[in-house]
Structure formats: structure tokens, C-alpha cells
């Protein structure tokens, strides 16, 4: 199973490092990563393998959201199926 992690908000030092560290800590293997900064606005999309997560996915979602909240970022993790079903026949 894969999850799509998105991070949006004001650009700052260490956003990728922080989110990546959290993924590593909880056993999510990052497969792909794309990011852009548009007039100080940071947007990152990460694809991660969640089969090896050490905690339930729902807890991982809460953890990322809380991490974002503390830093003025919106961080979400969603199962890839929602994107696959919506955009592929």
C-alpha cells in the first residue's frame, strides 16, 4: 500500500528534512518526491510505501497533521486509492 503525503504552506528551512525524518522514524519508505516553491509558497508531494509502518496509518495521519500544525503547514497523508479511482478508469 502506498500513501500520498502532501505538504503546503509558507517556505521555511528544513520542511523536507522534518517530514522525511518523521517518515523514517515511523517506517514509511519514501518512493518519490516532488516539490516546488512559488513566491514563498511551498508545495511538496511525496509517495511513500506504508506497508512497513510501525504504527496504524490513522495514527500516522494524525502525527503528520500535528507536525504541520505546529509549523504553520498543512500536512496530509491519504491512501493512493482515492487518487487512482478518481482519475483512472
Amino acid at each position, binding site marked *: 500500500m502506498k500513501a*500520498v503525503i*502532501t505538504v503546503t504552506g509558507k517556505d521555511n528551512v528544513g520542511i523536507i528534512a522534518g517530514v522525511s525524518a518523521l517518515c523514517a522514524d515511523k517506517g514509511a519508505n519514501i518512493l518519490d518526491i516532488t516539490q516546488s516553491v512559488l513566491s514563498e509558497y511551498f508545495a511538496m*508531494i511525496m509517495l511513500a510505501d506504508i506497508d512497513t509502518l510501525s504504527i496504524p496509518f490513522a495514527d500516522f495521519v*494524525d502525527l503528520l497533521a500535528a507536525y504541520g500544525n505546529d509549523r504553520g503547514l498543512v500536512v496530509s497523508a*491519504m491512501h493512493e*486509492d482515492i*487518487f487512482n*479511482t*478518481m*482519475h483512472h478508469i
Partner: protein
Amino acid sequence: MLNTADILETISMIRQENLDIRTITMGISLFDCVSEDENRLCDKIYDKITKSAEHLVQTGIDIEKQYGIPIVNKRVSVTPISLIGGTISPEGYIKIAQTLDRAADTLGINFIGGFSALVHKGFTVGAQNLISVIPYALRDTNKVCSSVNVATTKAGINMDAVKLMGSTIRKTAELTADRDSIGCAKLVVFANVPQDNPFMAGAFHGIGEPETVINVGVSGPGVVSSAIERAGDCDLSTLADIIKKTAFKITRVGQLVAGEAASRLGVPFGIVDLSLAPTPAIGDSVARILENMGLESCGCHGTTAALAMLNDAVKKGGVMASSHVGGLSGAFIPVSEDEGMIAAVASGNLSIEKLEAMTAVCSVGLDMIAIPGDTTEEVISAIIADEISIGVANTKTTAVRVIPVIGKDVGETVSFGGLLGYAPIIPLRTASPAKFIHRGGRIPAPIHSLKN
């Protein structure tokens, strides 16, 4: 494979355009609860519901987390209670309503539907007893929803039932007058009622349904509205295509969630209901879709045509996205639950006559319309008769959920709170239909050849 644009589109639908799953509704058969002892009957009903739907709310929350999409309501619908209660006393029926309410509280769901009767051809003793206590049941409970089917295209219209429902709505309004007659917001009168509808107040678990089933209702007026806005000055063929594509995406999410909920709960998947369901929130309005299509205000001439096109395109897009479609499946046009409809009524651009015309081309009917508190029961019955006739003649579902707000009149506003929203009181015709309504009897089923 996934691409960035698709991911961002989905996320913006959820975050900016209010895309959500409106409801996961578990249908539960209560046939095995039948008992001639009303206390035993209530105990069995309580046990069956709380056991069958024990994990419903938690499952909804878990799926919400997994896919990152809000699931606004978790609900239960049950077999029409008049079929379960049989000949128990009217007081027994009130006890059942209270039992349903208690079960809903235990489960943590926000509504339970099925305090219902099907009387399109005539009344059983059970149906009569149930309908006689609807006003009291709705006064004494918070989460119980009631519906009565008074007509079908094959049976015609039971005008005795239409007359009775006029007085039942009036009585319900009076008994809940201290809460702006909110009891009437939980009571709906149907023609051609669907048996697998997940939306309240009209949900019940039909007689051909399995023991338990999961039905899902999607939402997404905001998503459709934004897509139309982005399309700019295109022609209507292009617009219909855009609506279809958007409806496809919305419905796919509904199908995904329905399948996941069914498999986690070990319950068969029933249907996805394709209805566009608005809320009173800004950016979640069906009326604003119609205005984005080019109308100055919802309710102006052209509204029926725009709504017909919207409704048809939503179905065409949605049907391909889901393995089983059912329920009401069409654009909802409730007044108090739709910010744009509220504004259109308040500005005088949307009348009850136009709303009635709109219901001929979409589901579900005259919905959540606040009417003056001094409206007579005959006028309410006549509103029902008109609306139900549209459904019967057109072989479609129509329904009436009007709220005579006791103590309030045209020019005033009533607020029901939450998803039920708020509404200005709409003016009605005042000439009397009393003699027609008091005739009673049945309007015969319409002929379905010689179409014109």
C-alpha cells in the same frame, strides 16, 4: 500512474470545494424482531440495531482517515416500522420511536430513518396506528426520521392519506412549536419512494433488501460549481461534458468509500446515491451551480432547463463511476439547506411554484421549505397532492417536506441549525382547496400510453 495535477485537483476538491461523502447509511432489516409483546419487540429492535451497526461510526471515522475525505454523517435505516409493529397500540409505536432514538444515541449516529408507512393504496391497522402518533414520536425523539409513501405510478394517489398527512404535518408543527416546528424537518411524504435511499429524512430499509446493507450518498455541489466557473464562456454541450466528468470523479470516491465500508463491516454493498446534496455553507450550493451556468438568480425563467441539464449530466457521469446506482440519484433542491436557494427566496426570485416546476426534472421534491405558521391543513394537503401528482404522472420520486413554522409569517426567517440550515418563510396561495381535499378517495393510476 499518479501525476501532480491529479493529486492537487483531488486535494483542492476536498479542501476548497467542500467535496465530502454526505452519508454512509446502514440498512438493517427488523423483520426478525416481530413480536406481539411491545416491550419484547422494543428490546429486540434495540439489540438488533445496536449489534448490527456497532462498528458503523468507528468504521466511518477510520475510512475518513485512510482516504483523507470527510464522511459527514453515519446513519441507520430500518424496515418500515408499520410492517414490524403490526397491530400494536399507538402507544406501542411511540415506544418503538423512543427505542430507535435510544439505539441511535448508543451508536453515535446522527439520524435513524424508518419510522415509516407505505399507504399508497390503503391503510393497514399498523400504518394507521403509526401515522396517528408521528407528531408525538417526532416531538419526543431527536434522531428519528419518519416518512410516508402516499402514491405510486402503478397504484395512483391515496388522497385519504394525502389528507391525513396534511393534518399530521400541521399537528407535528404545533407540538414542536417551541423549537420552530422542527419536527416537520424530520417528516417527509413521498410518491414512488425508493427502497434504498441513504438520505434523510426519507431513508428506510425496503422489503426487497438484504439483512443488512451499506448505501452511500455523495455530495459535491461546490466541485461542480467550480468546474463550471473555470470553464468560462463555453456552450452548453461543453458544459454538459464538464459536469459529467466532474460527477464521474465525485461518484468514484463514493464507490471507493462504499466498497471499503462494506468490506470492513462485512456487510453487502447496496448502492451509491448520485445526488448532489447541498449544505447551508458558502460554496456548497446547487442554486449557485445554476447561477454559474448563466442565470442571474436561481428561480428566474430558465431555471428548470438549467436544472434538467445539470441533473441529467450528473446521472450520466455518475452511472459509469459506480457499479450500482440507486436511492434518489438527482440534484437536491432543499431551500433551507442551500445557501443559494435561501438567498433566491429572500430576494423574491424563487417562488414555491417555480420550486414545484423544478421538481419535475430533478429529485426529490419540495424540500425543507418554511411556510407560514397559519397555513391550514387543507392547504398543506393540497401542496402534497400537487407535488405527488408530478411524481406519479412522470414515473419518478417526488416528496414534500414543508415546515409550517407556528407563530411566524412571510417576511420572517427560521433557523433549524446545523445541516438543516435556515430559511425565509415562503408565501403561499391562500384560496382554499378544502372541498377538493375533503373528497378523499383515490386518484386512479395514470395511463402510460397516449403520451402527450
